């Protein structure tokens, strides 16, 4: 469990998030040949990665097929040291299939994957020592205790953390002598994470790390991941939880049917969807003129407009209302959320 002081620090970190320097650094898909703009030292939350740092994970035009079925159809992204990249998507979108290639567990049907500049499958021995993997299903024998499980895994690693530290990290110290079979789903997930972190990896691949966790444990996990990223690790994770992507990820890629249909920072993704204006008109009130750039979704007394120019459209609407003395009841104006963007693309046909 993070000490109170640590939690405090995280709280501060979260408030600092929307800083312009960081945003600029995070912006969009970068051409790997172009060095990213260095974050402003005064506002950067994290240790700035060296400008020339090569991506820790590079995926170019990845394809993966099972027989006739194409699970991954041309996915590209990269993750630099000190960055978190989230793959979002509904079940069956191809997230796990893509990750299995990164993890070196499956061959790509096409395209290339490099982890720390190395082919994770053909040169597995070189990359494994630096790779921490949390699979979607834990695959741990039920009859070993938590401590025995961690000790066994540590015995296979080059530079493992001490077992006590690993257990404390995920708040399982009190459960050290409990058989894995008797753990709750959330405890088991935390044990999986402890094993993924045990070898002090430089690249961390997490497949739905917080599925089944209660909100408190989820925050513990987020804190752990942030701690690793602060130390320069590169993290790729999949998740169903938009909140998790918003909290953790520098860049988000939304997958659908094996392709990335939307990628960028959460702001960029949200901006891909129009903002919404809603209001209700009193009986007999005149209809407002519809400005350019507005798509009318609902007319009549309950009006809903979608627009990509929220501010000018809202200004025009308010000016009109003031001029004609019209009351706009329940007026709402909202920029698109990540959730809205996700729902718009993730499940569309």
């Amino acid at each position, binding site marked *: 469990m993070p000490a109170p002081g640590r939690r405090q620090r995280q709280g501060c970190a979260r408030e600092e998030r929307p800083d312009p320097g960081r945003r600029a650094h995070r912006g969009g898909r970068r051409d790997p040949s172009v060095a990213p703009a260095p974050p402003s030292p005064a506002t950067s939350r994290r240790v700035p990665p060296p400008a020339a740092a090569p991506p820790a994970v590079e995926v170019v035009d990845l394809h993966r097929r099972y027989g006739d079925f194409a699970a991954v159809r041309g996915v590209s992204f990269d993750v630099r040291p000190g960055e978190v990249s989230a793959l979002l998507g509904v079940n069956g979108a191809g997230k796990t299939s893509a990750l299995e290639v990164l993890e070196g567990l499956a061959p790509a049907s096409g395209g290339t994957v490099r982890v720390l500049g190395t082919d994770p499958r053909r040169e597995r021995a070189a990359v494994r020592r630096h790779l921490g993997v949390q699979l979607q299903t834990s*695959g741990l024998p039920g009859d070993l205790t938590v401590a025995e499980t961690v000790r066994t*895994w540590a015995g296979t*690693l*080059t530079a493992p953390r001490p077992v006590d530290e690993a257990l404390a990290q995920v708040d399982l110290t009190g459960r050290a002598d409990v058989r894995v079979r008797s753990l709750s789903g959330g405890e088991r997930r935390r044990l999986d994470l402890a094993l993924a972190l045990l070898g002090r990896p430089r690249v961390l691949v997490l497949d739905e790390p917080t599925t089944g966790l209660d909100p408190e444990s989820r925050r513990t996990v987020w804190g752990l991941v942030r701690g690793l990223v602060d130390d320069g690790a590169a993290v790729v994770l999949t998740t169903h939880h938009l909140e998790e992507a918003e909290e953790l990820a520098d860049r988000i890629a939304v997958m659908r049917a094996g392709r990335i249909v939307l990628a960028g920072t959460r702001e960029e993704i949200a901006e891909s969807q129009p903002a919404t204006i809603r209001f209700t008109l009193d009986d007999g009130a005149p209809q407002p003129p519809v400005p350019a750039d507005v798509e009318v979704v609902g007319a009549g007394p309950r009006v809903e407009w979608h627009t990509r120019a929220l501010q000018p459209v809202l200004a025009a609407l308010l000016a009109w209302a003031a001029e004609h003395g019209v009351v706009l009841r329940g007026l709402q104006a909202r920029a698109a959320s990540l959730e809205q963007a996700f729902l718009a693309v993730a499940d569309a046909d």
Partner: protein
Amino acid sequence: MTTLPAPAGPSSLRRIGALATAETRLLARNRTAVVNSVLMPLLLVGFVAVVGGDGMLGVDLLVAAAGFTLVFLTYYNLVTTYVARREDLVLQRMRTGELTDAEVLAGTAAPTLLVTAVQIGLVAVGVAVLGRWTAPVDLLLPVLAVLLGAVVMVVLATASTVFTRTPESAQITTLPVVMGATALSGLFFPLSVLPEGLATVARLLPLTPVVELLQLGVAGRTWNGEVVAGAELWWAALAPLGVLLAWTAIAGFATARWFRWAPRR
């Protein structure tokens, strides 16, 4: 391409050791398995003590015990273990660390191999206690037979998982080895009673060379009943040794080519 720093990690042996320790602990916590693995050889020895007439030599019992243990325990147990571990996604998770594929398979096999050794050892002690022990003609051949036999059983087991979907279906998929290879291994009847063609086929099956080597080493007896010694003994051992190595290569190749680490989806 960047080269990654490669600090000295734990040796392969230490990694297998870590996994083997955990697997052995798991076995020891499975009370049924523990009781079975001690009870089986005791029953075998007891059976001979009670009904085995004077015609049954202790060394024959030892050969039979080694052959049966290798098939029914080593082979069958390993097929079900590997399949169960695969279906429970344990194998897949083991592969996410620094263990190599061969180390995962070896570590998983360790407790079964340990029990195999203990069982054969118990029968040997039992035979000695019953006063039916005779010194083997050659000490190296029986040891080689059991070691190579164990290796063949491990790779046959890994190869058999390719066509075994669940631990339960192993009861069917292991039949060719468990029934076929055992029946024609020379354990039940000497192969010299078979027509020549069939005898040759039988000698090419995976368990037969183990039995041949054991009989050569323990009693100096070849597959067709001749008694040999000295250089002739080793000359006679060449064919079964070759067959064992060939099976290791074939099953090893099949494993490398088709072994699945995760359940089919």
